[in-house]
């Protein structure tokens, strides 16, 4: 009995063990026999190593085929992050790699933790290593497990800072666009265009990556190539920009800003005629920034687009550390100092009188001026609103608007009887105040002025192929309400759209804002008899692999076009009958050539002095002085727009110089120089490759000056408007 019981217990113990072993064997069998295939698929990646082949990025040429963005083949050493997971292993690997890569250990450590490089893929050890270094590492792969040498490309911007705002730069994918690029099949650590056409044409420029699949053994040695799929280079771009003119425009702009910084602004006078003691006696113009846009108004192509301050795109490919980068491009809240902004498309500016041609258009096109071109108005320096009752005016509502002060009298200028042509030529404000009031009050307070100027593209983006375009604003009830809701203007002020708002609107002040590109495009529409193009900086997208016909010069004849970008750009027609266009054009022509008007004495037009000896392409233009903070003279920004009347040279240009003075003194000379250059009457420097970037310096871009700045010089008199 007892023996039997013990036998039973032995059987139980044995059975228990058998059960455990059967469970084990069943599970092992299941793993190895049943789930093997699925596991193999996962393991395959471990067994074979895939190295991505990065395609050559599309090159960028200027309008004449100059290679302005090129590529250089480089070798990059990377390491599998799993190898350096363990701090001890990391230290040993870095110690071993530091010598052959000629890179300090500290830098390797910084790079390992640098957030710019994806933490899940390989860590870049060194960029642009030599063939010898690569061979050294590959021959000793047992000593350098996980190290992979990759072929990569480095972007070369031949001409340094020239056109950098248009070209843009490359960088790591930003968090906000990570999902987008992932959906396009990008690697998380790929470099993409972050600015300029590098951004807008990113998908064209990128190309299609290839890969090499290697078979590797357990230690990670490459045994053979299983498969190699070559990368396909990206598409090339032909810009509409002429980089030689671009360089000239940048030189003219920067030279003029520097000149303006050495000029004193007028003093603020008290009514008694003495300088206001609360301000410094001498105030120089700050002239911190500016931009110029030159367009071909027949095609809508941008020929040159300069923005100051400039930067050298090569800073973004120099692999400088974050600290150095912050030194060159300091984070700043001061809009005057921001560098990485293309002011030509992102600038938000008051236009001042340079907006008047479009108000004149509104008045003529809607029949607001009885008799059109022959209508005259007696300008006595002030305009009193007719629609506001006297008692309201006495309560403090602003009812009287004045012309700018004439230096000879110290009082608002008086121009006498002026028609629309003369009003544009001498920039009479009162003439336009009246339009501003009556176009609103006589038309049932409808936004007629807004509707008319919108035809020229104000208030909406031009849809240029550059990022971060500013759409501009047009003063109206909705916009005022919106600003009040943001707390930008007082709630009272935001309640309704007043006559005073429309009056300020009519001389390009108040809540009107636009980008220089928008204005240039609007002047273009005047220049080409009423076609509003969508501007473009890229003329065509070309098939990959355009050949060079000389060093740095692409053979555009043999290139084939994939997308004719500017040809396909849409445009709209603005009704511009001769009876509307002619008075405006002849008014703008008189700005350049004179004559002015005589009332008491001869009043010059705003551009007469500057253009006295001008012998370039026949142009018409308009100055503008936009008042800045507190209407202080040194905060005046300068604007000048012009278009050619010569069908052989269909160019329009607009310049805007921030806090640089009157339109005629600061912006107009820049445009004058550009038209002289376009007329081949002024020396334009050859475009030569830039000096190597000095990464030891902290200068975003080298200086660019006109070799002969005399085109900027005008006769003495300054007149406001």
């Amino acid at each position, binding site marked *: 009995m007892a023996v039997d019981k013990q036998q039973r217990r032995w059987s139980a113990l044995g059975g228990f063990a058998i059960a*455990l*072993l059967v469970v084990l064997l069943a599970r092992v069998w299941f793993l190895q026999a049943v789930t093997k295939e699925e*596991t193999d698929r996962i393991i395959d990646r471990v067994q074979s190593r895939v190295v991505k082949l990065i395609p050559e990025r599309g090159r960028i040429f200027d309008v004449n085929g100059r290679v302005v963005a090129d590529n250089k083949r480089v070798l990059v050493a990377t390491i599998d992050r799993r190898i350096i997971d363990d701090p001890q292993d990391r230290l040993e690997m870095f110690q071993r790699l530091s010598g052959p890569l000629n890179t300090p250990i500290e830098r390797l450590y910084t790079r390992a933790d640098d957030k710019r490089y994806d933490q899940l893929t390989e860590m870049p050890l060194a960029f642009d290593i030599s063939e010898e270094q690569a061979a050294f590492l590959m021959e000793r792969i047992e000593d350098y497990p996980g190290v992979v040498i990759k072929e990569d490309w480095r972007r070369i911007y031949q001409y340094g800072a020239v056109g950098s705002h248009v070209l843009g730069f490359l960088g790591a994918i930003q968090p906000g666009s990570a999902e987008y690029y992932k959906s396009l099949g990008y690697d998380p650590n790929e470099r993409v265009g972050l600015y300029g056409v590098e951004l807008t044409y990113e998908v064209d420029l990128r190309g299609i990556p290839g890969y090499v699949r290697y078979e590797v053994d357990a230690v990670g040695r490459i045994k053979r190539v299983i498969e190699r799929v070559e990368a396909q280079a990206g598409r090339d771009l032909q810009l509409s920009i002429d980089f030689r003119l671009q360089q000239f425009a940048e030189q003219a702009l920067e030279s003029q800003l520097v000149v303006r910084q050495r000029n004193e602004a007028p003093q603020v006078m008290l009514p008694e005629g003495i300088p206001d003691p609360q301000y410094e006696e001498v105030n120089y113009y700050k002239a911190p920034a500016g931009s110029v846009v030159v367009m071909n108004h027949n095609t809508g192509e941008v020929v040159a687009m300069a923005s100051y301050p400039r930067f050298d795109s090569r800073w973004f490919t120099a692999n400088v550390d974050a600290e150095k980068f912050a030194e060159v491009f300091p984070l700043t809240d001061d809009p005057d100092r921001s560098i990485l902004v293309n002011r030509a498309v992102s600038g938000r500016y008051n236009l001042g009188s340079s907006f008047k041609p479009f108000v004149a258009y509104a008045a003529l096109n809607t029949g607001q001026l009885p008799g059109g071109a022959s209508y005259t108005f007696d300008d006595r320096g002030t305009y009193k609103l007719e629609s506001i009752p006297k008692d309201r005016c006495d309560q403090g509502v602003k009812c009287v608007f004045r012309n700018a002060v004439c230096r000879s009298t110290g009082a608002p200028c008086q121009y006498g009887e002026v028609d629309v042509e003369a009003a544009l030529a001498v920039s009479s404000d009162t003439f336009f105040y009246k339009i501003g009031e009556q176009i609103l009050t006589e038309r049932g307070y409808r936004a007629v002025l807004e509707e008319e100027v919108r035809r020229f593209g104000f208030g909406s983006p031009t849809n240029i192929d550059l990022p971060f375009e500013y759409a501009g604003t047009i003063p109206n009830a909705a916009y005022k309400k919106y600003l009040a809701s943001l707390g930008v203007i007082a709630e009272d002020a935001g309640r309704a759209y007043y006559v005073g708002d429309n009056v300020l609107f009519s001389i390009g002040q108040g809540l009107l804002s636009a980008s220089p590109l928008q204005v240039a495009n609007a002047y273009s529409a005047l220049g080409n008899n009423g076609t509003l193009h969508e501007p473009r900086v890229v003329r065509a997208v070309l098939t990959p692999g355009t050949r060079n016909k000389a060093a740095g010069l692409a053979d555009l004849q043999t290139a084939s076009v994939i997308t004719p970008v500017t040809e396909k750009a849409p445009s709209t027609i603005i009704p511009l009958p001769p009876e509307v266009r002619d008075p405006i054009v002849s008014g703008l022509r008189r700005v350049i050539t004179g004559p002015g008007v005589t009332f008491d004495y001869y009043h010059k037009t705003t551009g007469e002095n500057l253009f006295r000896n001008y012998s370039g392409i026949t142009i018409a233009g308009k100055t503008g002085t936009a008042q800045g903070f507190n209407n202080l003279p040194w905060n005046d920004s300068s604007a000048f727009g012009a278009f050619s009347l010569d069908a052989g040279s269909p160019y329009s240009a607009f310049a805007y110089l921030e806090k640089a003075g009157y339109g005629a003194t600061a912006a107009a000379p820049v445009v004058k120089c550009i038209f002289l250059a376009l007329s081949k009457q002024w020396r334009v420097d050859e475009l030569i490759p830039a000096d190597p970037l000095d990464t030891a310096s902290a200068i975003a871009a080298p200086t660019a000056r006109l070799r002969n700045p005399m085109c900027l010089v005008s006769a003495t008199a300054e007149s406001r408007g």
Partner: protein
Amino acid sequence: MSIAFRVRSRPSDPRGSASVLDPWRNVDWMMLWAVGALAVIGVFNIYATTSPRLVLRGADPFYFTQRQVLFVFAAVVALGAVMFFGHDWLRSIAVWLYAATTFSLFILLLWGRASSETKLSFDLGVIAVQPAEVMKPVLVLVLAAWFADAGMRTMPYDEFIRALLIAGAPFLLIALQPDLGSAMTIAAGVFGVLLIAGTQRRHFVFITILATLSFMASIWSGVVRDYQLERFTALWNQNNTSDRSLQNLVLQVRYAKRAVAAGGYFGKGYLQGELTNGRFIPVQSTDFPFSAIGEQFGLVGAFIVVGLFSFILLRVWIIGRNANSPFGRFLAAGVFATLAWQVFQNIGMTIGITPVSGLPLPFVSYGGSHLVAWAVMIGLVQSVEMRRSA
């Protein structure tokens, strides 16, 4: 009732010098060959799992392999000594061994608490000794001796309780280290001895309830630390990668499983396992040797290893069943249950069916303490067989 497959199958040596009573005639060489085969597999496996990382560090790739070979020699010496002196002699000093090992566990626990680290071993410079491993043969020995001395066919309640107290002290000390894997293995050994020593069924019910209650109490009282609970949680969430605290454990098991699965039927070949290079699976040479075997030698290799263990278990079972002294039977039962459980637990955690614990695979894992401890256990069983006619 008799079993046809007798352990002692060799006829008397015709040259006939040895006495019938010579214990060395009765050595179970088959079992020793199986154990030896596992030890050799273990040594080769340790080279495969440790050398790539040593190469990476620029150290001697044979460092751990050489040490393991030395451990194997030490284990052979221990095995020979136990077989020579016999289990009865060890029975006479069992109490002292028990006292010394329990004391060292206690010291280790105090030391661990004082340094607020988890201390599992005494570091003696050249080697580190794990008292928990030593406790396995000692406890089997002392419990078997206890019940053999009592000499009862069915166990009365007071004997049962005393046995529980004897086993409970080291169990608690090891559980508090905390080394729940070893504690479980010790419990399995105790269970084996108790079962064969004639514990009554209701006492088993009682001990099961007690164990369940104390387990729950330990979770509530916080004796079981968070990371140990996580090991259970990880077992039930093997496909969960979002929980960061579980990620390491889950990944560890996932790589181990993947390594086993990657082997397929015939494996990738020795040193050809991509995952068997010490980079993906932490502590592969001690805790996950089976993953390396599975990847390199496939289902065939895995079945051979499990088969060798099964064979050893079978021999231990037969020896225990046929032993003519209660002490011998109890010893064999304890060793049998300990071995079966430890093999199950270690391979089980590699293939994702038991919680992860730092428990070595007998004879195969890297480590001196467990090799010597298992040599002693095998020696005890051998001694039972050798001296069965005494």
